[in-house]
């Protein structure tokens, strides 16, 4: 096979836009764990633009590379295609690689594919390369991780001769070979390399291919080799129940027919074994010696003997996970407090320097508070992605999936769902962002839907307030503290419900097709800190950009809901005027108090929040909340808690006229304890406290979570579903707790 360089390429390119020639597009494609993303970061200098592939929520990262060698500098756009072992596909997700390579489905058409292969694993990696070459696209091979095979380095020249395209040895982690790769990219863009590789398949398969390729749509037949390759692709990808896009019904019928007529012939075997036979025949020429068990694998297997050991392995695993969790839960705390202090300082500053007005309140409570609500997530997001970066880079993340798969499988989840689930104990927002480490849409969605059920740190202030106020600090059996036991029980309860929900949702709402697990345990490597830092930055920036504005808007809306109509200023909107009229003019506050909550008037004047729309809404929903044991005050607290669960505490404080209440504020606890019903009995019993905690454990009281789910799924459907199922679950569970408890005489 010789290298064929075609000079005339214009006939196959789409007409360039009028004016300046468009920026050439280069794809980076390769198997997972080949250092593709590291190479991308090296080439583009980390200035990645992040978007999605058309029509699907799979991240598409692109960046600019300036080629400086040989002539004037020219800029090319580089796209990091998701890792794939093969181009054959059965889902829209797996189809991305092929669509990106061929410029299908609104993808821009690439000018060159740089295939990144692991220099130590050519036997497997070359499979994808042969598929690409058969498609008749321009290819340059980056023989990456060459530093790991110094004892048995593959011969780049020999590989180049075999494939008929340029091959450059690179080491993206340390930056070697990049200049040569850039030169090869530049040269290939001028003189596109065209491989003459043609694989001869067994005669019967060749006949099938002719039949199928005759039925291909015109745009699939740009060249004879491509038509043949796409016929192969169609024959091995199309199934009666595949989820592929853009496959004509006639083609589907024909492929199914051809497969059915194959009888005892095994088309998949004919195709795959032929490709591997070709690769296997070449391997002795590529490596100085053939190794069935490469050295770098042996080294990492020795490490695995400890890290995957039934006893030590699990002990280390639990230790590492605790460390990660601890960092999310506790170490982020000073930063979170600092952010909260800054926002309250900022609000105070405005309040002391600007005269009282609606606008001032909008700025302090709405805007500054809203910005604070967004920024407050950053410490945990950054810490979680720091941990994930280290775990992924070192190769341990695959071991986490390997260790936990048996358990996660029982729930219908992937082993990789473990880290996001664990992070859910700290906060659902970073945990949902972390689901991107999973490849499949279904796994991601299912994990996203159940993660908000885990007891996150925002629920703790609520639990602390309720437990502190309504449960005596007594001990069971003389030594077990009731309050501590309750807290542990809430954790166990939420974990149990999360697992059950995953099990149920995985079989109902996100049924989809369960795809068998395929996992690769990559060799252990030193994590790259620059790569990790850049990923932390990207995730944080993406969160601020995508979810930030939504959280800000919701904070302002909630502020308005709980602040209007204002008790002091009379504005002239008809709604407010009507409200005031309705309340009467002499003692409106007292009157409304007397009408709807007579028992609550005993010790204090009413609060502004009570008259707000939010307060009225709280009263309006009281009949719905009654069966759970909640009154309208709790209802208002629940509305406020939608901004973030811990806001429940300060909202309840406002209802009772206590400013700046936190979960340990004694007056607030006392108010809750002293609250009386009409008949003089305590309004809030321990049973109601339990019901309220169960409600908080299960309900989706977090707009930020919903906003992030919306951003990750790109549809309003899943956040609505999440809100619906969690609220229903919370309502039913609280109902059962409260009514069941009453039946039992509590």
């Amino acid at each position, binding site marked *: 096979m010789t290298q064929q360089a075609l000079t005339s390429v214009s006939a196959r390119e789409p007409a360039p836009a009028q004016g300046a020639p468009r920026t050439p597009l280069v794809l980076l494609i390769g198997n997972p764990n080949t250092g593709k993303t590291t190479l991308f970061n090296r080439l583009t200098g980390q200035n990645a633009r992040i978007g999605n592939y058309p029509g699907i929520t799979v991240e598409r990262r692109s960046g600019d590379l300036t080629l400086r060698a040989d002539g004037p500098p020219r800029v090319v756009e580089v796209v990091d295609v998701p890792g794939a*072992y*093969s181009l*054959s596909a*059965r889902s829209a997700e797996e189809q991305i690689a092929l669509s990106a390579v061929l410029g299908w489905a609104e993808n821009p058409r690439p000018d060159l594919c740089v295939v990144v292969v692991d220099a*130590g*694993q050519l*036997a*497997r990696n070359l*499979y994808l390369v042969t598929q690409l070459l058969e498609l008749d696209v321009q290819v340059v091979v980056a023989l990456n991780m060459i530093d790991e095979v110094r004892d048995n380095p593959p011969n780049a020249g020999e590989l180049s001769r075999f494939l008929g395209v340029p091959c450059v040895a690179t080491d993206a982690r340390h930056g070697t070979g990049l200049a040569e790769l850039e030169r090869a990219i530049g040269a290939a863009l001028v003189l596109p390399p065209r491989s003459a590789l043609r694989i001869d398949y*067994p005669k*019967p398969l060749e006949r099938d291919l002719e039949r199928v390729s005759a039925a291909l749509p015109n745009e699939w037949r740009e060249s004879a080799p491509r038509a043949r390759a796409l016929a192969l692709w169609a024959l*091995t990808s199309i*199934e009666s129940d*595949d989820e592929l896009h853009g496959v004509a019904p006639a083609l589907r019928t024909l492929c199914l027919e051809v497969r059915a007529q194959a009888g*005892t*012939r*095994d088309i*998949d*075997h*004919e195709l*795959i*074994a*032929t490709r*591997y*036979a070709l690769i*296997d*025949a070449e*391997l*002795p020429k590529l490596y100085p010696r*053939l*190794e*069935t*068990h*490469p050295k770098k*694998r042996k080294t990492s*297997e020795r490490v*695995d003997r400890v890290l*995957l*050991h*039934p006893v030590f*392995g*699990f002990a280390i695993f639990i230790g590492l996970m605790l460390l990660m969790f601890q960092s999310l839960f506790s170490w982020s705390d000073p930063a979170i407090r600092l952010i909260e202090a800054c926002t309250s300082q900022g609000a105070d500053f405005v309040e002391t320097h600007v005269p009282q007005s609606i606008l001032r309140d909008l700025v302090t409570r709405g805007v500054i508070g809203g910005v604070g609500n967004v920024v407050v997530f950053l410490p945990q997001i950054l810490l979680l992605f720091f941990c994930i970066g280290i775990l992924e880079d070192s190769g341990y993340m695959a071991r986490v999936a*390997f*260790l936990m*798969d*048996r*358990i996660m*499988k029982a729930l219908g989840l992937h082993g990789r769902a473990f880290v996001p689930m664990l992070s859910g104990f700290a906060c659902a927002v970073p945990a949902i962002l972390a689901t991107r480490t999973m490849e499949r849409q279904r796994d991601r969605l299912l994990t996203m839907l159940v993660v908000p059920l885990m007891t996150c740190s925002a629920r703790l202030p609520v639990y602390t307030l309720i437990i502190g106020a309504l449960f005596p600090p007594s001990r069971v059996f003389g030594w077990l503290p009731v309050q501590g036991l309750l807290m542990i029980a809430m954790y166990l309860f939420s974990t149990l419900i999360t697992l059950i929900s995953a099990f149920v949702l995985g079989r109902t709402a996100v049924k989809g097709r369960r*795809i*068998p*697990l*395929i*996992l*690769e*345990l*990559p060799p252990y490597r030193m994590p790259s800190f620059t790569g990790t830092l850049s990923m932390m930055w990207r995730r944080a920036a993406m969160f601020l950009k995508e979810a930030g504005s939504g959280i800000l808007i919701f904070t302002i809306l909630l502020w308005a809901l709980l602040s209007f109509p204002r008790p002091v200023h009379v504005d002239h909107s008809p709604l407010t005027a009507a409200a005031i009229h309705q309340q009467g003019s002499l003692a409106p506050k007292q009157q409304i108090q007397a009408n709807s909550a007579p028992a609550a008037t005993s010790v204090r004047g009413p609060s502004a929040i009570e008259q707000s729309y939010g307060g009225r809404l709280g009263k309006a929903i009281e009949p719905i909340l009654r069966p759970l044991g909640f009154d309208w005050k709790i209802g208002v607290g629940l509305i406020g808690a939608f901004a973030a669960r811990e806001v429940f505490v300060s909202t309840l404080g406002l209802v009772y006229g206590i400013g700046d209440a936190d979960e340990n504020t004694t007056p607030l606890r006392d108010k809750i304890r002293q609250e009386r019903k009409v008949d003089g009995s305590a309004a809030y019993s321990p049973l109601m406290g339990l019901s309220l905690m169960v409600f908080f454990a299960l309900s989706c009281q977090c707009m930020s979570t919903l906003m992030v789910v919306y951003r990750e799924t790109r549809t309003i459907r899943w956040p609505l579903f999440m809100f619906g199922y969690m609220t229903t679950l919370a309502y039913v569970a609280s109902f059962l707790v409260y009514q069941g408890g009453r039946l039992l005489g509590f």
Partner: protein
Amino acid sequence: MNLAQTRIGQIVTVAHVAGEGSFRRRLMELGLVPGTRVEVVGIAPLGDPLELLVRGSSLSIRRAEAEGVSVSLGEAASAERKPGSPSRTPGNDTLAARGLARSAP
């Protein structure tokens, strides 16, 4: 025997891959074609999945799927001279033998 019945450290040769269409194809595309040498590197502490070494690369699959991969003990080096023996798929004997002859180191 099948892959799920192997023990850690055993070296086996793939004889036949069964299973649901696209997953079977995926396994084969990852290198598990008849005649391929497979080393059972490890089994996860909870009993599932299995870690295999296939063509110098790591591959972990669940027990349920490994049951579909029938194997014979030992390496296939000798099968090189016995065309047809590793493949149980009719009509592919010569092909498998060709692949084997080249894969055997």
